[in-house]
């Protein structure tokens, strides 16, 4: 349980609308988690992988209705994601539209009573669901979800313009929740082993290398990369492990280890298991 409650501005988030009746079916065939039966107003994280099970992107899927999904990607991977989905869109009713004007802010922590007083309908919202709210004439999707390591978060996505970002931040500050700076959040992320696009979430690794088993449905059936992931899991052949180390402990002779992130004296390393 976290001892602090704070908010963070995800300036790297990138958004796409996926429209069309085959959108969920297509996404289900291209990613690790089961999204086919996702209900309206629900969020699920899934991982799009290539044929060798290397990561294309880890994305949050917000199901607005049967004809419209909001895909939350990252500026590091979004072009590759669009190209990958389009590559496999053959006969399907599915169209991708990049949304440049959206932004995301998340609240992380457990002290949420003040937030619930401000947005009462959020209190009864279950984890994995979201609501649509109008605040100051701007439309927001507010969801109870989680970070990639499973820590609970409350995610605000504004659909009405980047210019509202400061207003939202001010509103959250006014209810007594402070902002974690980019640098402080980077240290938090490293200490909590939350993989990040461009650092750990890259096509050198598969989801199991990054400990993302919880985002894989091993019983859902075929998707691109499924055979490789199933084999790695069944035969315990995962080569890498993601772990946190102190920068002072980094030794130039560490074989098979790559430092992928570092901040405030701590680092995320991905090491060959046989050398750990």
């Amino acid at each position: 349980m976290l001892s602090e409650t704070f908010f963070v501005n995800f300036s790297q988030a990138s958004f796409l609308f996926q429209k069309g009746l085959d959108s969920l079916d297509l996404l289900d065939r291209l990613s690790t988690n089961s999204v086919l039966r996702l209900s309206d107003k629900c969020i699920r994280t899934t991982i799009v992988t290539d044929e060798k099970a290397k990561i294309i992107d880890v994305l949050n899927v917000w199901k607005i209705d049967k004809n419209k999904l909001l895909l939350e990607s990252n500026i590091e991977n979004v072009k590759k994601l669009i190209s990958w989905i389009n590559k496999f869109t053959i006969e399907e009713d599915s169209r991708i539209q990049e949304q440049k004007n959206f932004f995301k802010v998340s609240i992380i922590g457990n002290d949420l009573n003040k937030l619930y007083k401000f947005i009462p309908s959020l209190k009864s919202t279950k984890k994995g669901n979201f609501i649509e709210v109008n605040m100051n004439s701007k439309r927001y999707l507010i969801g109870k979800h989680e970070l990639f390591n499973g820590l609970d978060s409350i995610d605000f996505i504004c659909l009405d313009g980047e210019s509202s970002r400061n207003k939202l931040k001010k509103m959250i500050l006014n209810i007594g929740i402070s902002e974690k700076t980019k640098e402080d959040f980077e240290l938090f992320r490293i200490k909590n082993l939350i993989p990040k696009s461009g650092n750990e979430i890259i096509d050198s690794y598969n989801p199991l290398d990054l400990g993302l088993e919880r985002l894989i449905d091993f019983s859902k059936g075929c998707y691109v990369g499924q055979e490789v992931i199933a084999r790695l899991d069944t035969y315990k052949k995962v080569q890498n492990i993601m772990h946190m180390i102190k920068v002072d402990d980094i030794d130039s002779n560490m074989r098979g280890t790559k430092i992928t992130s570092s901040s405030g004296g701590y680092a995320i390393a991905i090491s060959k298991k046989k050398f750990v």
Partner: protein
Amino acid sequence: MSQVPINTIEITERAASKVKKFAENEGKNPFALKVAVKGGGCSGLTYDLEIVDTPAENEKIIKQHGVEIRIPKKSFIFLAGTILDFSDGLNGKGFLFSNPNAKKSCGCGTSFSV
């Protein structure tokens, strides 16, 4: 198995007979077999078979062994020259695709990459 010209696909008599039985079970008459390709499956592309009764636009139509085969033109790019067969029995694998465009296939044989 003989080579199929790349401007068509071929269905074996055994597969055609099975398709007719499926159509009868579904109560569709007249019927056609739609053969398409979808994104997904372990190797990237997966075969999709469906008994249909209404024609769609932009389909290539082939008739063999009393079965009308309809192939969406976008899918035909991936299927040209394919032989569709059927493997029966307890250890049979059902419909089998022998696709000259497939560079790799997954273990279960229902998906491929080009």
